[in-house]
């Protein structure tokens, strides 16, 4: 199981029956394939619909996800304009959003939309999702490609939102965030506390109920 799959499998366990969920581009889009069969969620796509499904057969006009890729619509889907899409997002009608991250800090701040002088893709809908979703989960690899920690005392990249992240899932561990502190809740199989300490750029509490990282399926 590679890092991304481990993360996606763990995030899947956070999604409960009936949830409305918005998944960011990239890693988060892997999550639905690891949902138990008895858990039915509704995927919101910020380009304007609820009820995104897998593409079946030929692509149909206008049936694309927020990354511009062809997708399907499930029975019971509903289409709307961008104003309505973000009324849903900002208004707390999305139960969970799962987003990738560049950095997360102990105050629940997330940076994921630009690297000054290097990469400025724009925030798209991410700032609204962070501001409005009931629960924000960040799903990301624990360190950068060059081994720098992504969990920090203080993000140094420009923020996407302040204080909105409540759960961080990496291939090594699961952290909650509360009252300005990371709380280590789960360790991936075969990963020890020291490894996580070494790869994390902030101090963290260890939960009384620390356990092995759960995985769907």
């Amino acid at each position, binding site marked *: 199981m590679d890092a991304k799959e481990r993360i996606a499998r763990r995030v899947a366990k956070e999604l409960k029956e009936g949830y409305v969920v918005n998944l960011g581009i990239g890693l988060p889009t892997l999550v639905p394939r690891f949902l138990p069969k008895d858990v039915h969620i509704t995927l919101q796509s910020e*380009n304007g619909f609820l009820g995104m499904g897998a593409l079946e057969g030929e692509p149909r006009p206008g049936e694309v996800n927020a990354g511009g890729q062809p997708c399907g619509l499930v029975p019971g889907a509903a289409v709307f304009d*961008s104003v309505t899409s973000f009324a849903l997002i900002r208004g707390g009608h999305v139960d969970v959003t799962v987003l990738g991250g560049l950095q997360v800090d102990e105050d629940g701040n997330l940076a994921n939309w630009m690297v000054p002088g290097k990469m400025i893709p724009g925030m798209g809908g991410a700032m609204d999702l962070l501001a409005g979703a009931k629960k924000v989960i960040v799903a990301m690899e624990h360190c950068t490609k060059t081994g720098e920690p992504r969990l920090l005392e203080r993000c140094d990249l420009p*923020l996407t939102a302040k204080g909105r992240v409540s759960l961080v899932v990496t291939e090594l561990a699961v952290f909650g965030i509360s009252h300005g502190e990371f709380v280590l809740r789960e360790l991936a199989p075969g990963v020890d506390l020291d490894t996580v300490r070494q790869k994390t750029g902030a101090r963290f509490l260890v939960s009384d109920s620390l356990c092995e990282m759960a995985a769907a399926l």
Partner: protein
Amino acid sequence: MNKLMDWDEVGPLFRDGMSIMVGGFFAVGTPGGIVSLLAEQGTRELTLIGNDTASPTTGVGPLISSGQVSKVIVSHIGTNPVTGRKMMDGEMEVELVPQGTLAERIRCGGSGLGGVLTPTGVGTVVEEGKTKLAVGGREYLLELPLRADVAILKARKADRAGNLVYERAARNFNPVMAFAADLVIAEVDELVDTGCIDPDEVMTPAALVDRIVVSRKEA
């Protein structure tokens, strides 16, 4: 009042220096025929307002590649490296606006509102230079209205009166832009007689649409 145009009537509606709202999300729901025409006739110094800049060859991308655009107001440019390069080189101004805020600002511009208070962007660079207000113990940014000289929309179907129907996620920013420009032009795949669209199914009322042009069939 005949709103239907031939393609040769479209070009003269545009002038250098105009601000143009363009419907679409990564080119889905963008009026490709009108964009091509603008590229051909070389209208310059445009300000484009829309969700994104698509790619160098899709959506509004060709106008950016050809240097006809002096400013874009969008939520995302990551899929078009030309936009990023022109921004870095100072050849084109890029105003990045969170997607939901962009929708609300256009909505304000089209519905007579002076602004909205949104939590989006609080605590980020987006708040720079903006009024911040606390309501009910939460902080909000005051975001201001956005309008354009022209809005160019893409619809699946129109009746001759100008009522529009969009298809699936090609709806996106098109309906709200129909409210927020001095001149509203719709490029449509299909034209039907007035009365052939059920009033409950109209997505943009005819009163908002000034001109209609039917998409050229792909060869």
